[in-house]
C-alpha cells in the first residue's frame, strides 16, 4: 500500500501573489496576509470559509499560530511543517488528503517574506549541523556548489551549461511584468560573474526579493461552482533523503527521482505528458538535477539539455516560465511561487502563457537538496 491519492479530487480554487520585488516597510506577516486575502477573493470565497491553514514562514517558528491569529482564523487543522522550500508541495499533499476525506473543507496555503527590504539577507535561522559547521560552508550555497562540482566531474557539465539555466530564466522574466530581475543578460556576464563558492558564481544564485503567495484548495466538486477555471491536483508526493549534503550517497541524484516518479504515477502521467515544469531553481544546478531526476532527460544529460535551448522560450519543455527563483522572485522560499505559475499556466492566466496546457508540474526543493516534493496539476480535460 501507500501512495493512495485522490487523483483530481481536489483543486486549486484560488491563487494570488503579492509584493513580488521590493515592498519596503511591510512585515512578512502583512505581505502574506494580503496574498491570502487576494487568493480567497480570487476563488470567490470568503475568509470565514477557510477551515485549515498550511504555512511555513522563514522568520517565525510559530507561524501557524501567529498567522491564524492575524487573519482571525480558528482552523480545524494547522500545519507549520519545516521541510524548507518544498514545504508547500507537501502542504498540497496533506490538504488534498484531508479535503478528500472530508476532514476539512477549505485549505489556505500561504507564504511570504520581506527579506529583501529587511536587510537583504536570507531570513533563515537554519545553519549547518555541528559536523559541518567547523569547516564554514556557506549555508546553503556551498552545499549546492559541492553537488555542482561533482556533476561537472562525472558528466562533463560546464559553466556554460549552468549559464544556460540563468539565461533561460532571464528570457522568461523579461516578458513577465511581475518578475523582479529583467534586462539583458549575456553568457559573458554569467561566465565573468564573481565566484562565490566554486563553481557557483553570483549569476548561478537565486534572487533575494520580497514577496508573498497563497492558494486556496477545495474539493473539485466545489471548485467547479467557484469563480475560476478548475486546476485539479492530479498527484503530490514528497521525499526526504538527507539533511546535510555530506550524507548524500550521491550528490548528483536527489529525492526528486522518488517524489517525481510517485507524483506522476498518482497522476497517471509520464514526463512527455507534461507541458511545462516549474522547478525550484535556488541555484542553476537545481534545474539541471531536477530535469534529470524527474525524467525529462537522462542522468548526466541535464547540462546538454538546457544548453540545447529546450527549457527556454520556444523550447520543447518550457521551464520556469515566470523567470523562476533566478529572475522572477525568491523571497527565502520559492515553492509556492512555482505552484502558482503552474496553476496560472493551466488557467490560461500566465504572463508567458503557453498554448494547450493540460498538465503542469511544480517541483519544490528544501534544505540542501535534502527534501523534494512534486505536484502534478491538471486542466478539466484531464479529469
Amino acid at each position, binding site marked *: 500500500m501507500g501512495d493512495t491519492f485522490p487523483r483530481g479530487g481536489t483543486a486549486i480554487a484560488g491563487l494570488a501573489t503579492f509584493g513580488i520585488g521590493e515592498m519596503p516597510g511591510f512585515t512578512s506577516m502583512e505581505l502574506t496576509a494580503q496574498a491570502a486575502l487576494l487568493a480567497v477573493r480570487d476563488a470567490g470565497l470568503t475568509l470565514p470559509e477557510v477551515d485549515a491553514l498550511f504555512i511555513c514562514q522563514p522568520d517565525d517558528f510559530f507561524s501557524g499560530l501567529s498567522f491564524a491569529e492575524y487573519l482571525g482564523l480558528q482552523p480545524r487543522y494547522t500545519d507549520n511543517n519545516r521541510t524548507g522550500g518544498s514545504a508547500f508541495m507537501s502542504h498540497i499533499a496533506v490538504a488534498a488528503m484531508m479535503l478528500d476525506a472530508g476532514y476539512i473543507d477549505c485549505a489556505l496555503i500561504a507564504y511570504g517574506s520581506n527579506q529583501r527590504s529587511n536587510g537583504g539577507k536570507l531570513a533563515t535561522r537554519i545553519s549547518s549541523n555541528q559536523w559541518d559547521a567547523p569547516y564554514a560552508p556557506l549555508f546553503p550555497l556551498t552545499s549546492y556548489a*559541492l553537488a555542482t562540482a561533482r556533476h561537472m566531474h562525472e558528466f562533463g557539465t560546464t559553466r556554460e551549461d549552468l549559464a544556460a539555466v540563468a539565461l533561460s530564466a532571464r528570457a522568461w522574466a523579461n516578458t513577465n511584468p511581475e518578475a523582479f530581475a529583467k534586462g539583458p543578460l549575456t553568457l559573458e556576464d554569467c561566465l565573468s560573474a564573481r565566484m562565490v*563558492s*566554486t563553481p557557483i558564481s553570483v549569476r548561478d544564485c537565486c534572487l533575494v526579493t520580497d514577496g508573498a503567495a497563497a492558494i486556496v484548495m477545495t474539493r473539485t466538486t466545489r471548485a467547479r461552482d467557484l469563480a475560476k477555471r478548475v486546476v485539479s491536483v492530479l498527484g503530490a508526493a514528497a521525499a526526504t533523503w538527507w539533511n546535510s549534503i*555530506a550524507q548524500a550517497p550521491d*550528490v548528483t541524484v536527489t529525492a526528486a527521482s522518488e517524489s517525481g516518479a510517485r507524483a506522476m504515477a498518482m497522476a497517471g502521467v509520464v514526463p512527455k505528458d507534461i507541458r511545462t515544469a516549474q522547478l525550484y531553481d535556488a541555484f542553476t544546478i537545481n534545474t539541471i538535477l531536477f530535469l534529470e531526476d524527474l525524467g525529462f532527460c537522462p542522468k548526466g544529460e541535464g547540462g546538454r539539455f538546457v544548453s540545447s535551448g529546450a527549457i527556454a522560450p520556444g523550447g520543447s519543455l518550457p521551464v520556469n516560465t515566470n523567470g523562476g527563483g533566478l529572475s522572477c522572485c525568491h523571497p527565502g522560499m520559492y515553492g509556492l511561487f512555482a505552484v502558482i505559475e503552474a496553476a496560472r499556466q493551466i488557467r490560461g492566466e500566465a504572463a508567458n502563457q503557453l498554448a494547450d496546457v493540460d498538465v503542469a508540474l511544480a517541483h519544490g526543493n528544501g534544505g540542501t537538496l535534502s527534501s523534494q516534493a512534486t505536484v502534478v496539476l491538471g486542466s478539466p480535460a484531464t479529469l
Partner: protein
Amino acid sequence: MSSPEAQWRAALAEGRLLLQRAPDGRVVFPPRLAAPGTGEVLEWFEASGRGTVYTLSWVNRKPPAEPYNVALIDLDEGARLMSRVEGVTPATLAIGMRVDAFVDQAEGAPLLLFQPVED
C-alpha cells in the same frame, strides 16, 4: 550508556578518528545511538584516516583574506564526511585526490582536517 557523540569527541581530542560499523557492514558517520535504517547495535572502530576527495568547493572571501576549501571526503572504510584539505591550492586540490586525516588542536576545540598523501 554514554553519549556516542561525546565518545567520538573524546577520541578526537586524543588524536583518534573513530567510526561505527553496523552488523551488515555499513560504516556510519556521524556517530549515532543505533544503525540508521535498522536500529541495530553499532560497534566502534578506529579509522585509518585515509580517504579520497569526493567533491570540493573553494569559498572566496574579501581580499586580502585567502579562499578556503570545503570538501567531502570518502574515507577508505566507507563513511563520507565534510572537512578541509590543508596544504593545497585551487590549482592542486582535485576530486579523486588521496588524503590523510590529522587532528588540529590549534583552535581550542580539536578539528579533523586532511592533507594530501601519496599512497
